[in-house]
């Protein structure tokens, strides 16, 4: 049986689903019997959800007029298309 500390140290991996089936089962078993760890796991889930939904910190951020002008210039006079960069180390598409 895992201790509460051991369960809590794995809590973020548990909510992310980054664990083996066996590890998940061990934690699940502990949670069935431990109200404190269940409460902790609930806190971890809610924290994760709040961070994920803490959307759009720059929602009001606007493109500067300088940058927008550069975008317009580039669109009007696009650079000659370069060779595809699939094999290039820098700035390749991932």
């Amino acid at each position, binding site marked *: 049986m895992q201790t509460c500390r051991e369960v809590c140290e794995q809590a973020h991996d548990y909510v992310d689903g980054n664990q083996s089936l066996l590890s998940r089962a061990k934690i699940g078993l502990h949670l069935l019997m431990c109200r404190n760890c269940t409460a902790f796991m609930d*806190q971890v889930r809610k924290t994760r959800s709040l*961070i994920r939904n803490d959307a759009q910190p720059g929602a009001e951020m606007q493109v500067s007029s300088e940058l927008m002008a550069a975008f317009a210039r580039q669109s009007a006079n696009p650079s000659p298309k370069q060779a595809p960069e699939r094999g290039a180390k820098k700035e390749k598409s991932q």
Partner: protein
Amino acid sequence: MQDRNLHQRMLRGDQAALAGVYASLNPVMVRLAVAITGNPALAEDLTQEAWLAVFDKLATFRGDAPLRHWILRILANKARTRARQEGKRRKEETSIDGPTFPEGHFSDGGDWALPPQLWDDLTPERVLAGREIWQIVQGAILTLPATQQAILALLERENLSAEACGDLLGLSAGNVRVHLHRAREKIRRTLDAELADAERN
């Protein structure tokens, strides 16, 4: 917006398409550049330079990865190059040594010494209604080291994998996950303390 559609619109010079990507991605870019260079002022400049490079290279984007990730890659390469040229190193400690939980959380036997409170009051309705919850989360994020702020933005907002995130930041995927968990844990503790305060008052 579909990635291909977004790319096509940007190629045509659609300013609304650029404005949409910029509004949501630029803050993530700045956090990434700060994490790599350790210099907020330089990070702002590099982010602007990266956008110019994006405009210049837009026609070469092949769609092997999401456009937003391709833009982040351009910035990360620029930031790493500049940091090397200027002899700058990430100033902050990126060590992940040390305990996840502060002293006193658990007994020597590993049981709870300070049991967690129930967050039953933190319902979705309350979260939606209460701006203060967002402010607490935002405030807690801003107290994190730059690397952890960038990791939160890249993983939680941009949905990058730990591997892709580590690639941008020069960290292993394992270290990225540890940083992510430490960051979340600090935010959880902040929320817990604030909710306990609210309960008392």
